[in-house]
């Protein structure tokens, strides 16, 4: 009633109540789509699925995969989620969105209408356009094939369970999951996922692999001079260190049966599919939050939504992008929604209302077309480079960022930079680095296989800043050992030499190097 006064009087809001209907959702979606088109958002077609809270928990516990193979760890996740939800300790995620074509987004039936609109704007237009636009997703994932591939994977695993028993399959999956982070190619573009091809090639692959393996594991010594033998002994296998552990094991594991190689391959493919998401959390969530905020405000300007709608929406929005300070009991690291949302919002400001500081820091961007600039930022970066490129002094000031160093050689923590003139650059670099996945995870490579000896596999850990391997290393090595079938060694090597060793099976006397 009051809201009609300062806005175009001929336009009436789509609805005034907070109850949703399919009709209303359709109308909202149509209007949001119009606004999205105004801003040039390019998306896959949308599929919006209304589900119950229980179904949301189901979706939640299978890492958002709409179909997945069965594994106890998903059951654990499910119990965890439903337990938390039932006790009221935890609300469910508003939204789950799947990088597929059409892009599937889930709406929970319990949500009010403003919440549904928010989720549609956030997921079906925000995330969706990110999936379609960002170079990592374009290069590494194939949105049109993922669902078929998941179905293929599920059926294949189920078949294996029937044939080889649930326990045998579970063991392989456990081991693969433990190494999932080391099952991705970081630099090579993988062949796209395709369920049909996958099935067709399964047969060929089996023969081919067997041939290759025989070659590698030929046990009858070749006739030749001692010198030749000597050089053979000296060359490592693989000749170049390899970072994709699962790939290496799939191709070279001496004792694996064909179905086990296939399962490794499935886990590897899924890891690859999720890899871009892990690299673009800040960018992706920030982008989606920026657009739900911008699109719904556009709706408000057009008089399509009421003040009450906006109040409810803003309340949720504020909660999503809230960043507790480091000393708060709720602090658990930097909130990717906040950081991403702040960067995009500030980027728009830099384009539209640049200050002298902005002109100094972002000479190419200040005053440019904001829609174009934001799309450029969304398409061509990953978290690390995105932060490095676009984190502005203003955002650092707003978030009051500071960096702190923790050196085990020192008695104290040191504040190394804060949000001031002398700190901006350091801070930006350090924060960017924090999002480099290879700094988050130990840098491990397949170093050598003792081809002519005990067939043992050696992994090499190259420490960064002297940070050692964690406590679970021995456990994970047991998984590597299960897949490889022979002894497995892991050595931490820096410029000065071998710093630490792990062995599976463990050695009786762990000899220091």
């Amino acid at each position, binding site marked *: 009633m009051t809201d009609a006064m300062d806005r175009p009087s001929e336009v009436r809001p789509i609805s005034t109540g907070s109850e949703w209907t399919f009709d209303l*959702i*359709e109308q909202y979606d149509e209007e949001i789509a119009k606004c999205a088109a105004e801003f040039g958002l390019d998306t896959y*077609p949308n*599929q919006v*699925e*209304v589900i119950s809270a229980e*179904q949301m928990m*189901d979706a939640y*516990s299978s890492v958002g995969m709409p179909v997945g193979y*069965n594994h*106890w*760890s*998903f*059951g*654990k996740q*499910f*119990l965890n989620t439903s*337990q938390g939800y039932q006790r009221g300790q935890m609300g469910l995620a508003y939204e789950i969105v799947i990088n597929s074509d*059409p892009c599937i987004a889930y709406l929970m039936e319990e949500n009010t209408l403003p919440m549904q609109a928010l989720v549609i704007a956030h997921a079906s237009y925000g995330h969706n356009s990110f999936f379609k636009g960002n170079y990592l997703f374009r290069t590494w994932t194939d949105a049109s094939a993922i669902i078929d591939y998941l179905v293929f994977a599920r059926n294949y695993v189920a078949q294996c369970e029937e044939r080889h028993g*649930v326990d045998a399959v*579970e063991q392989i999956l*456990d081991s693969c*999951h*433990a*190494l*999932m982070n080391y099952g991705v190619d970081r630099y090579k573009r993988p062949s796209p996922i395709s369920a049909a091809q996958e099935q067709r090639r399964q047969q060929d692959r089996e023969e081919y692999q067997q041939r290759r393996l025989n070659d590698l594991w030929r046990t009858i010594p070749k006739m030749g001079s001692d010198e030749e033998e000597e050089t053979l002994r000296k060359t490592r296998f693989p000749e170049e260190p390899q970072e994709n552990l699962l790939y290496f094991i799939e191709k070279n594991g001496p004792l694996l049966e064909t179905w086990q190689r296939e399962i490794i391959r499935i886990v590897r493919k899924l890891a690859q599919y999720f890899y871009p998401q892990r690299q673009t959390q800040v960018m992706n969530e920030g982008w989606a939050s920026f657009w739900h905020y911008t699109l719904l405000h556009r709706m408000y300007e057009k008089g399509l939504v009421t003040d009450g709608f906006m109040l409810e929406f803003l309340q949720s929005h504020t909660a999503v992008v809230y960043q*507790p*300070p*480091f*000393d708060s009991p709720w*602090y*658990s*690291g930097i909130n990717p929604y906040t950081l991403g949302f702040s960067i995009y919002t500030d980027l728009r400001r830099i384009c539209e209302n640049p200050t002298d500081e902005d002109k100094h820091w972002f000479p190419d961007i200040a005053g440019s077309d904001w829609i174009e600039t934001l799309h450029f930022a969304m398409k061509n970066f990953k978290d690390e480079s995105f932060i490095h490129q676009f984190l502005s002094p203003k955002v650092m000031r707003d978030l*009051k*960022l500071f960096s702190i*160093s*923790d050196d*085990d*050689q020192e008695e*104290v*923590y*040191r504040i190394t930079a*804060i949000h001031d003139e002398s*700190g901006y650059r350091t*801070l930006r670099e350090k924060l960017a680095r*924090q999002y480099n996945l290879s700094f*988050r*995870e130990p840098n491990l490579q397949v170093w050598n296989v003792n081809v002519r000896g005990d067939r043992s596999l050696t992994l090499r850990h190259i*420490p*960064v*800043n*002297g*940070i050692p*391997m*964690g*406590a*679970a*290393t021995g*456990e*994970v090595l047991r998984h590597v050992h299960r897949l490889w079938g022979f002894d497995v060694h892991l050595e931490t090597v820096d410029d000065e030499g071998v710093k630490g060793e792990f062995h599976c099976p463990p050695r009786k006397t762990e000899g220091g190097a």
Partner: protein
Amino acid sequence: MGMTHIVDRRLNGKNKSAVNRERFLRRYRHHIKKAVSDAVQRRSITDVEGGESVSIPARDLEEPIFHHGQGGKREMVHPGNKEFVAGDELPKPPGGGGGGQGDGKASPDGEGMDEFAFQITQDEFLEFLFDDLELPNLARKKLRDTEAFKYVRSGFSTQGVPAKLDVVRSLRGAHARRLSLGGARKRKIRELEAQLAALKTAPDDLDPAFSHKDQIEVLEAEIAKLKSNLKRIPYIDEIDLRYRQHLKQPQPATSAVMFCLMDVSGSMTQMHKDIAKRFFILLYLFLKKNYKRIDVVFIRHHTSAKEVDEEEFFYSRETGGTIVSSALKLMDKIIKARYSPAEWNIYAAQASDGDNWNDDSPICSKILSEQILPQVQYYSYVEITPQDHQMLWYEYEKVMAENPDSFAMQQIADPSEIYPVFRQLFERKAA
């Protein structure tokens, strides 16, 4: 636009995670069995139905991955600076502990939750309980499912098979329908007939223009039309039909009383009692499926017997010798006083370590054979001992030889051996 496809998925596939959940329970069955076993000790034997909360040390559930350990040099950026400036030094908390991992989640090496807690359902609870007792599937099913059903009336419905047609109700409905459809017309006919009669009896008007003849004709035609209309109202129509509706209801026929007899003399340890408790629980579950009302009577004895509540039955200790017949006598007394066999199905389960005064054992078998067994449905005796039998066992063997239908006995050293006693019970019931 029309690019968006909106789907209502609420009705399909609710339990997608069921298999994964089952996989989880399967993987951690040892933990869960232990929790169930603990719960059995804690719960009353009449309270074994219902779910249970299970917690597993979070450590055991971890999925290890390669991760960074403590130490080395690392830098982290945090938000919310208040008074720090570059170069500030902060003391480290005592006992080491350093900056967290790159991401904000609990690190895999032990921080965060200590216990992973979740609920198992009643069915799962029983499943694990039965698993522990090594109950075969057929028996599990029998314990879980109610076998007998009876049909109870539950009103009427407009659909059904001819055999269930309720004639009186259907005709009553038809009558009401005829009344409501025909009532107005009948009233009209009565009115018109009254007019007609009045016209016929009244002297005719002289003026032919006002002659009654025309009016009479009109009235008669109208009456005829209404009557034929009335005739077309069917006497009985499909919508009048009413069928008796029945509902399948589990049929726990009548009442049962379960006597739990246990030796609590010094030689019975807590372990003995726990095995006995499981035995009693099974019997209770079995009865619960078959009877509407179950009373449980606890009789404990050493040299003398006493009726007690469950708590005292299982958890208080006595010292001294053992006279089993005292319990049997008390049971007989209670039956006579409160549970007439004409109205009650009487079951008894006796647990003992086999100790008895030798002189007393023949008395026991005599009381059983002559007084108790004629009154009860079933009497089961478990002897919880790995050792050789004593006098009581041999006396009871005689009883069993004479009463194979109503008496079963078994030696138990481990919970998994409880079942054979029950097999006899189930077989008898199934026949």
